[in-house]
């Protein structure tokens, strides 16, 4: 990978990438606001039975009601909370794991690095979705387990990217100088290597959030998410198991949650794209 063949800043981020990044940022901000102010925005408590089941949209229930008479719009608004929480926290787990492994493997490329990269390769080759499901099945259904399962499976790709950058950083003059002057490895890593991987790590982090949001939705859709949480994936799980997509109800029961998942994942993906263009222009 050709990282920093051009120094960042020398070539301005292409306008298109910047614009896409802004669009992504707006999407994320809107969702965060929705998640934070969910109790104010939602017309009903999403866990209460507030109407007759299987109602089409009406003045009281804009998106109708589900199979037990809960308000679908309220479910949709509260769903942003689970989606964003799982997405961001799982990505933080992945960021910590990926950066640690990436920096260690890049800074000690001989023995430790080889072993670490070998395990990264194994994780990357293992069948991803089946492994995710097997792990989720054994761990049991809770929000924390969803986060853990996603976090421990998506760090491997980012760690490889970070490693290749650290590999090139460790032979730079200032790192060599600090080592020659007797600074411990820890100092060189914390003072010189980590700050220079920060931008790259942030980029992979944002990309990881986008992935994690999709994975959370998929797990919830398969019925492997937290049964007590209202997430967009679980709305679709019930729509599927109650056959809503075989009736006209798909327009208000199936369409909106999927759109929300897509907006959330896309928002982060666009920001990640803009950041990657800045680091490693490929447009």
């Amino acid at each position, binding site marked *: 990978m050709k990282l920093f063949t051009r120094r960042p800043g020398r070539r301005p981020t292409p306008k298109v990438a910047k614009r896409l990044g802004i669009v992504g940022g707006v999407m994320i901000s809107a969702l965060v606001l929705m998640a934070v102010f969910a109790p104010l925005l939602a017309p009903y408590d999403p866990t209460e039975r507030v109407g007759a089941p299987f109602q089409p949209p009406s003045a009281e229930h804009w998106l109708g009601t589900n199979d037990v008479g809960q308000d679908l719009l309220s479910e949709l608004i509260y769903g942003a909370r689970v989606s964003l929480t799982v997405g961001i926290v799982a990505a933080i787990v992945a960021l910590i794991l990926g950066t640690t492994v990436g920096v260690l493997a890049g800074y000690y490329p001989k023995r430790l690095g080889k072993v670490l990269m070998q395990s990264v390769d194994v994780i990357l080759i*293992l069948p991803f979705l089946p492994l995710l499901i097997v792990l989720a099945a054994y761990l049991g259904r809770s929000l924390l387990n969803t986060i853990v399962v996603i976090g421990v499976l998506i760090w491997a790709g980012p760690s490889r990217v970070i490693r290749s950058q650290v590999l090139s950083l460790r032979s730079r003059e200032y790192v060599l100088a600090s080592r020659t002057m007797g600074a411990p490895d820890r100092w060189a890593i914390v003072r010189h290597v980590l700050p220079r991987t920060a931008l790259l790590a942030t980029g992979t982090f944002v990309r990881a959030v986008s992935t994690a949001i999709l994975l959370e939705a998929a797990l919830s859709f398969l019925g492997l998410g937290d049964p007590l949480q209202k997430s967009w994936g679980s709305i679709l799980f019930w729509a599927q198991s109650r056959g809503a997509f075989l009736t006209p109800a798909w327009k208000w029961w*199936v369409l909106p949650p999927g759109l929300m998942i897509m907006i959330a994942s896309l928002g982060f993906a666009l920001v990640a794209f803009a950041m990657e263009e800045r680091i490693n222009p490929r*447009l």
Partner: protein
Amino acid sequence: MRRIGLKNLDRYLLVFVVAVSLNFLLPRLMPGNPLALIAGVDVGLMTPDERAEIITAVGLDEPLLTQFIDYWKAVLTFDLGFSYKSGRPIVEMITERLPWTLLITVGSLMVSAVIGIVLGGWSAWRRGKKTDLSMLTGMISLQSLPSFWLGMLLISVFAVQLGWFPSFGAETPASSYEGMARVGDILEHAILPIVTLTVLSIPGVYMTMRYSMLEVLGSDFIRTARAKGASERRVLFGHVARNAIAPVVTFLAIRFAFAFGGSVIIETVFSYPGLGRLIFEAVSGRDYPVMQAAFLVFTVAVIVANLVADLLYPVLDPRMRVE
């Protein structure tokens, strides 16, 4: 230079060992009763005698190392045991399901390869132009599309509202179709799952092809080709596309592995009786032996796909050929 195909063999072996070990260790390391996680049946409802019987059958009373060795023996002799739910041999269940998954994954891969390569090549050729940018944006959006949602929408619109395609299964149940009629019936059922998987695979192929093309476009031999007066057509098809295709084919092999795993979700949406649906049924019915066996089959499929990619690369890219 060593042969590419064999270079990674030890890695694939390691992947297999890790997969088998995960299968063995996960149920035994999890908190709670390992018996419940291995047998998957309701242990609480069993009499102590039945429980003891299963414990001896699985070997849970043996030392861990003995269990591990026995487990390996079973895996290597394809003795995958029986489903606790249906009582059928697992090998039989898997061989019955595998062809369906292969049908939709291979089918979708071929379609997405053609579309992805054409669009990716076109996009790179028009780099920075409006076509390129809007296609790129579109592909980024497609990557954020939840697969199961797309499948559900396709069913709602094309199967239910328009009635063009069946909404579930791989064949019309209890039909007496023979020969071509049966093939037609199977295709009709496979179309929507294939379309879903195709839409999901296109962005990856497109991105790989586009970046690969851009790299080739910037290389010296393209400048030479232009300098010697080759027509744009000749540059595109004779020089650029030919050299850009190798990474794409490698990617396709890996993408196959990914699509294979993605079948879990697609087959669940379409109630398609493949391997992915099998692992989902096993998980929701807590039929753990079936789940483990299916996971191993997925692992082997991924390894095979990677091997094929390694072997194909030197064939397609003369620069990688062994001296």
